[in-house]
């Protein structure tokens, strides 16, 4: 069924948007140490930095219509290399999902459900992901469209109420109070985090019609994510001061707690929480989908539902075992800093080599 599915331009834009914007939960706090007040600018630049890699994926995808990057790897480099790369890919996707699931669960526990056991929240989130993926991928893409738009409107509507009383220009000007080295370090880290989007692109490329011609879709998605992400960081900084914002665990929710309207409306964190909920469920489902797709490929698409359940359990069990915001935060930072982007570049290089090998084979036997 999925083989004939096609994503629209809006779906590609918003899928990439959610996969990038979800990182605001941890990236900002970490990069702020290096970038200082310029963190919003560094986030903007860092996200844009992944455009060449996404265009690369689109061009690689062109050579194998309706196939994922792993189909391309298998065609040129053989099954063994593909299985090896796929296993690492599955592991990384599970790690990303575990980190996000833990961070979201702990946020929920800190602010709203102090006494609810974390495994209940995690189970609920994972079950929702399984439910979404057990249907057509297009249905999930449509859901992402709706939730991304609702979440963004919801987030910024809450913060519109702070203008101008809680928006302090002196906290954001001057923009540069850091060294060039610090700024570049922040940009590279942001690019590492934003490259989570590329993990998804590697498998959804097969649903994008004529990818080489439609590479502007992903460029638009990444640029809009960069603008929204930078705007969110800017608002949090202007509300809380860079000194406080860089040490908080849940930026948007903490900032929304400061908003009050009159005597009785104290804090709008519930609204911002709703946005985080949308983002978290979409992100966790996305990485479950990525891991599931790669595992299905290894087993030649036999018993896909069984694979989906196994993948979900592989996310659920480590999440329950980890059960810590701080550990999940450092896991996400570690993945963004050292793992995701280098691994994706390696896959892209291998995929390009695979295409060259395939083309050479074709060249030796005239068609």
């Amino acid at each position, binding site marked *: 069924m999925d083989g004939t599915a096609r994503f629209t331009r809006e779906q590609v834009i918003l899928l990439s948007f959610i996969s990038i914007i979800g990182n605001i939960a941890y990236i900002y706090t970490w990069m702020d140490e290096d970038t200082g007040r310029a963190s919003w600018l560094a986030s903007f630049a860092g996200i844009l930095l992944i455009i060449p890699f996404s265009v690369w994926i689109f061009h690689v995808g062109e050579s194998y219509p309706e196939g994922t990057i792993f189909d391309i790897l298998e065609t040129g480099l053989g099954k063994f290399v593909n299985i090896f790369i796929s296993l690492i890919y599955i592991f990384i996707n599970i790690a990303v999902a575990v980190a996000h699931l833990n961070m979201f669960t702990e946020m929920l526990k*800190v*602010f*709203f*459900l*102090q*006494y*609810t*056991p974390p495994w*209940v*929240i995690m*189970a*609920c989130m994972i*079950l*929702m992901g*399984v*439910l979404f993926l*057990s*249907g057509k991928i297009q249905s999930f893409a449509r859901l992402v469209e709706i939730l991304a738009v609702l979440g963004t409107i919801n987030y910024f509507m809450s913060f519109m109420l702070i203008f101008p009383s809680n928006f302090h220009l*002196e906290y954001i*000007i*001057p923009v*540069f*109070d850091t060294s060039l080295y610090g700024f570049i370090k922040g940009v590279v880290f942001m690019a590492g985090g934003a490259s989570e989007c590329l993990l998804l692109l590697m498998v959804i490329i097969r649903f994008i019609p004529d990818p080489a011609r439609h590479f502007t879709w992903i460029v638009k998605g990444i640029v809009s994510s960069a603008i929204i992400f930078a705007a969110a960081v800017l608002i949090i900084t202007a509300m*809380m*001061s860079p*000194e*406080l914002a860089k040490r908080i665990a849940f930026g948007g929710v903490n900032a929304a*707690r*400061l*908003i*009050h309207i009159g005597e*009785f409306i*104290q*804090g709008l964190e519930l609204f911002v929480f709703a946005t985080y909920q949308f983002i978290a469920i979409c992100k966790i489902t996305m990485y479950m989908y990525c891991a599931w797709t790669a595992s299905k490929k290894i087993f030649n698409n036999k018993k896909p*539902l069984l694979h989906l359940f196994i993948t979900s359990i592989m996310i659920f069990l480590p999440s329950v075992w980890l059960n810590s915001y701080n550990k999940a935060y450092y896991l996400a930072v570690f993945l963004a800093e050292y793992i995701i982007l280098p691994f994706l570049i390696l896959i892209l290089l291998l995929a390009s080599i695979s295409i060259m090998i395939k083309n050479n084979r074709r060249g030796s036997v005239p068609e």
Partner: protein
Amino acid sequence: MKVKLFLLSMVILTQLFLSGCWDYSEYDDMVAIMTIGIDFNTDTKEMTVTVQHIPAVKGGMISGAESRPIPSQVGVVHSATDKTYYGALAKLQQLIPKQLFFGYLKIMIVGESAAKYKMKDIMELHDRTPAIRNSAFIAIVSGKAEDTISTMDVESVMSSGQEISRLINLSSNTGAAYPVTIQDFVTMMAIGGLEAVLPHITTTVYQNQRVEAKGGTVSGFKADEQREGDQLLSGSAAFKGNTLAGWMDAKESLGYGWITGKNIHAYETSGVVGGEDTEDIIYYRISKSKSKIKVQIVDGEPTVAVDVNVSAEMRKYYGNKGSEFLSPDELKTIQEALSDSIRSDIHAALTKAQKEFKSDIFGFGFALFRKNPHLWRTKYEKKWDDIFPDIPIDIKVDSKIINTGTNIKKLDTKK
């Protein structure tokens, strides 16, 4: 299809557990804390936490023409003492038979000793806990916070915490202090080159007057504390780092407000009331105030220029002197008199901060950082405390009288 139905039912089932089983709480089972007071005993090294809440059931309105709530509705005050702030806060649950709920906290009041020795500890907890909202006001009291919170006006319809909160809300009408939330205070503690200033509250009763614990006193607990009196917004409390540096009176606070560009709607006079014939003093009502702080490096040393712009309306003209008509020329003279008065407030504040507290409450260091972050970090940040007391400050006040009230002529009376 069966699989999807199964998944859907599982999702619905788990969602039922989310808020229903573990975190469910009835509002009637909670008690809304309006005020928290924190004291530190330097002898025993113990912290005392005082909370004020409104009883949910007891009380009602006294009927009749002068309908008013009975006194118990203006807030019940309990306190507990422990080695730590959090310990004392937790201990209160042994005394109050309902879940403590801090969602509607109005104000946090810190006693003098706690402000001197325990501010960082207190703020670390407040900055971390999600239970207590950082949008609540914070104020410092002379003496003990416990005494201030338990001082009640029995004729009032508000609790002492609410009264203090309202006083702080209206503080721009006097310029004696400026509203600061817990979040603002933590920010001021964190930003380099800027020290914190908080409202200073006193009571109208003698500090040593005994507070009666009507509900009794046992080791570490006091229940239903009360004494009669009222609260007073008497100025500001200046900090240096995490420590209370000292008090500023209303004039010095006003000077602080002029420099930092606070929203002031205060009453101002052209001279010192009581220092000369009060009939020849002009009264003004400030309608708008702005300021600009510029820090420059001159001959390798930082210098500060403060431009203050004030708009005011005249409320009283000279009694014995002055011209018949309030012409533009006459207005110029009146404006000068206002500028002089504002300048004297500013000098009072500067002298106190630079010479006595040696604390940069005006944020001159922060202004230098904003002008040149690199220079601040490499040269001035570490030695700013030594440099600040001797920085030359150039004050420029530009006052504008936008109207002279309902009259444009002097009041003529029979001789």
